[in-house]
């Protein structure tokens, strides 16, 4: 359907026919397949392992592109179309490469009331990348505007990669977060 794109969203949708970026890795390694099948065995239906397998794909491939989705379909012997549909539904699966430090800033109402808009601009300025625009040239940073992270009483907040949130982030705090990133204090985005 011809939905006009909402004007202010940061995550980039694919145009019809547009191809997802390629990854170097084309398939899961044998260990990952084993891991996925072990997860699948915990459920009455292997389809239920689709989300966990996509998380593993994101960990191993760096983002959930076409190859990662196909690898999930293959590992679980489920239709590719199903995996595409699921992967594109959930916003945590990145369809494009992200930086080594993927900074996710909550801009929902509670954080917005406490200065999220300014924080987002500041993060963007300090990392040199626009929200949703892909990683910085050195591959270090990417920024994403995200919906409520459940940190409303201590906003504005952000999440670096999959790590524990940083809360009440003001300018000084942002500096120390960026320093922490450089020192490798945060959980890695991918393998």
């Amino acid at each position, binding site marked *: 359907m011809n939905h006009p794109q909402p004007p202010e969203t940061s995550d980039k949708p694919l145009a019809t026919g547009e191809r997802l970026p390629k990854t170097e890795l084309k398939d899961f390694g044998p260990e990952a397949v084993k891991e996925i099948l072990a997860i699948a065995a915990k459920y009455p239906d292997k389809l239920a392992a689709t989300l966990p397998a996509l998380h593993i794909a994101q960990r191993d491939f760096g983002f959930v592109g076409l190859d990662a989705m196909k690898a999930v379909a293959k590992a679980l012997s489920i239709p590719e179309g199903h995996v595409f549909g699921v992967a594109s539904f959930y916003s945590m699966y990145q369809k494009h490469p992200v930086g080594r430090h993927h900074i996710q800033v909550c801009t929902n109402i509670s954080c917005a009331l406490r200065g999220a808009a300014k924080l987002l601009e500041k993060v963007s300025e300090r990392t040199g990348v626009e929200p949703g625009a892909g990683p910085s040239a050195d591959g270090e940073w990417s920024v994403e505007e*995200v919906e409520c992270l459940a940190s*409303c009483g201590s906003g504005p907040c952000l999440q670096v990669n999959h790590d524990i949130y940083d809360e009440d982030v003001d300018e000084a705090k942002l500096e120390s977060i960026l320093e922490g990133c450089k020192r490798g204090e945060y959980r890695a985005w991918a393998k």
Partner: protein
Amino acid sequence: MAIRTKPDHQRYTFEGFGSAKYPNLMLRGAGDLNNWPLAVYESKHEGYAGMRKALQMEPGAVIEDVKTSGIRGRGGAGFPAGLKWSFMPKDTAERKFTRYLVINADEGEPGTFKDRAILEYNPHQLIEGCIIAAYAMQANTCYVYIRGEFLWLIEKLEAAIEEAKAKGYLGKDILGSGFDLEILVHRGAGAYICGEETALLNSLEGRRGEPRVKPPFPAAKGVFGAPTTINNVETIAAVAPILRMGGAEYAKLGTPKNTGTRVFCLSGHIKRPGLYELPLGVPLDFILNDLAGGSSTGKKIKAVIPGGASAPVFSEKEFSTPMDFDAVRNAGSMAGSGGVIVLDEDTCMVQACLRLIRFYAHESCGQCTPCREGCNWMEMILHRIEHGQGRTEDLDLLASMTPNIAGKTLCALGDAACGPMDSILQKFRHEFVHHIEHKTCMVSGHRLLAHVGAH
């Protein structure tokens, strides 16, 4: 695995919290990062006493006790939990059912951050509640669906589950009762709609998180085609103290039809934001002013969203509303998930409205027409009003759209979008009119959205 921790910035207490008037049932030890292990829970917080008591009872008697407690679901809809449990089919001579208990830990309602605190500080209270609930309904598998961003909490809950297993509280023949239970943690991947119970079931099954057509209801056909009950984290965690103290004792808290305590989440322009566990029925202005210190900006409070982003806003005349399910409903809003968001008089309501509607347009699952198309359309219109390109007829257009969305969609997301839309437009129409007529904002205060031109 070492559990990653980092001090958080929430407030969990207030003066008088923990007294008989304001008992602490849900937030014991909150704020102390070393509070989570089983040993602490058992030695300091009467941990697993409720479970021990429940396992001595008939499953049906446990359900009765929860019914007696009167607890209503803390996830949003406020449906009596005991009654919900009683819908699960019982085994008969002809048919043995596989039943599931599913815990909704997909906390994502803007303004709500209570489940996160329970997972952070009292995972064992949730596990205890799961054991009691699963035993009551004779479900042998429990899935905890946790939002994907809470990765460290998933690891913590899994560690807690291992502790409980080692103690014999989970697994086969729990404490010699003959009852078996396995708890599995399932990580979500970023979709607000998965907080809707049937969307959550689809997501758990590895599908797109699209709400299901009802009937069949989950109690008849839930996850993997089997009877399923889905409860919110706070509801299930509350079951532990309910069993421990007895349903009748719990029912004395709060008001007769809105029993017990619930954890209110205060955010926005408020001096002391944080979690406030309070008996139901405490007036909103008492919470705002007496407990939380009033506005954080020194400006007057203009509006309050009383039950998470989906709730219609209160303006000043509703600030005295007692905070329970029925009173809030009677005042035209909903108690929802307990998220209380405070907006001061410098807040542009057009921006606030756009921010909320943008959220719903982004989070609509897309399967039913009025929600998918309607939210998207409302966002477009609000966007142009906010950006000084509003048309005079836009307000009537917005007003004419909500009746085609609210109450007409497959799940409650359409209603959730229309609640704030309608109420803000109705109560703060002059701000919209000003935007359209003057191509600019009436208030000049806080900027809620990045890259907004009109301010």
